[in-house]
């Protein structure tokens, strides 16, 4: 299950790209590879354009701010979510923080491991502590999220 979030091997990306040589979508050229973007709500999305699925989690900055995470409420698989919708929450002892859908689409998987091991969010927020996967209905939303550099600047500005 966890392997699902790993970047696909370059060869498979290449194959899928080669299989549709007649559909050059230049406007999404930058998104033809698995890449990660960030929301101002301190979430990350790793988007795989070959499947249209984005993996969603919270950033290291967010987990540090929250402290020990003791509870995670996630959306149900199959739920349709719109960008900006509250879809769940991450709770530490001191606070609850809503999770907002950083992109629109359908939830295809949730990280079940978190119900037993919410501390994964502290240990590996950008790895094994991912929250859910969303099949994007509008990949352009992903392009509008922050780059790693822009997100870093956002955090420094807070």
């Amino acid at each position, binding site marked *: 299950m966890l392997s699902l979030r790993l970047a696909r091997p370059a060869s498979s990306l290449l194959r899928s790209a080669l299989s549709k040589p007649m559909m050059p979508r230049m406007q999404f050229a930058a998104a033809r590879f698995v890449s990660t973007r960030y929301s*101002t*709500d*301190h*979430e990350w999305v790793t988007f795989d354009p070959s499947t249209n699925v984005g993996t969603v989690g*919270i950033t290291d*900055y*967010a987990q540090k*701010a*929250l*402290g*020990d995470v*003791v*509870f995670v*409420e996630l959306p149900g698989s199959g739920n349709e979510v719109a960008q900006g919708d*509250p879809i*769940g*929450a*991450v*709770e*530490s*002892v*001191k*606070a*609850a*923080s*809503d*999770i*907002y859908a950083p992109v629109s689409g359908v939830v295809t998987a949730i990280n079940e491991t978190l119900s037993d091991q919410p501390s994964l969010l*502290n240990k590996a927020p950008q790895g094994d502590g991912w929250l859910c996967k969303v099949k994007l209905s509008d990949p352009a939303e992903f392009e509008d999220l922050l780059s790693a550099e822009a997100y870093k600047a956002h955090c420094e500005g*807070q």
Partner: protein
Amino acid sequence: MLVLRSSRSALRTLEAPSGGLVGRVLLRGLSTSAARSEELKKTPLYDFHVQHKAKMVPFAGWSMPLSYGEVGQITAHNHVRNAAGLFDVSHMLQHRFTGPSSQSFLESLSPSSLHALTPFSSTLSVLLNESGGIIDDTIITKHSDNDFYVVTNAGRSEEDKAHIGSKLAEWNENHPGKEVKWETMDGWGLLALQGPKAAEVLQGLTETDLSAVKFGQSAFAEIGQGKVTCHVARGGYTGEDGFEVSIPPEHAVELTELLSGHPDVQLIGLGARDSLRLEAGMCLYGHDLDESVSPVEAALTWVIGKDRRAPDAPNPFPGKSRILEEIANGPKRRRVGFEVIGVPAREGCKVFAADGKTEIGVITSGIPSPTLGTNIAMGYVLNGQHKKGTKVQVEVRRKLREAVVKPMPFVPTKYYK
């Protein structure tokens, strides 16, 4: 910087707080008197905290440690329950009232039977407004009939000082020759040493026999090799055995270093302080209490002295008619504890009757309890829905969640009695 902000008191608004991830990482108790834009005040231990890698945050107008180094809130919390923790509470306002009518003056502000206290004993009390609402909660310690030591909340210092100042001016005008002198002990250190090892740790630093100082009692003790005379009060805000040590300004850092140097003692910040006090069922002013709430509503009827409830008792406390009426017939709402099933409920969450339709109250504090592993909360419900075991529903993120009214404290207190 990272937004560690207060939400508005749930008692004043039924709107649930909102905001983005992290935006809602709220540090409780930031409310009330201090404006955010003002320069934050520093306790005598500010530099000490910074040297010990504290994460400093604004709290009630002060720059205070939230946590130290990489120690998480749960680790810090458990350390207090299992060993001993040291808290800087120097931001709280320490007062001394001296002079011939000190006792009567303080009884004119609060409903406690201070005349019934023996010297060097203390009580939780409340300062009341004319409508019987709580201006602040406080610990009043009697040294003698004409000498009192009082501690009030940092977040209420402006309101408390204005209130006490105006009441005192009036009092002294009406009591010529018996005037009360009021001083605030600005710059003094106040440390809370809390936990099952607290007594052993402090006893190692003083010749005063602490076994003779029971919960709610106090003594002046000489601490450390320098024999610094400190006021040591047994009690605290965690439910554990422990002490609050009031230290002259010039010795605050030295004694903090001495106490924190003990291997059983860890420095503890505001984060764990909040979860510890909630497990102990204690109120945080600005969240669980405000000026609209009476002590009867707040489940603090016990602070109202029995003899002071008599309709013809002398020196009536403020708001007496409302409070007597509430004691006799029940208040409109009551502060109760809850266990919420499944998810933690936080300040501002609405409470509904078991039918899920009738709104009956609001949560004022709530956490996943580090000690119990359950979700505990306190809040207010309509009178009649307050009995232990009453099933209710609490709205968290637009969904109703099962909850049940529970007695407090949630974690049994371990006072030295």
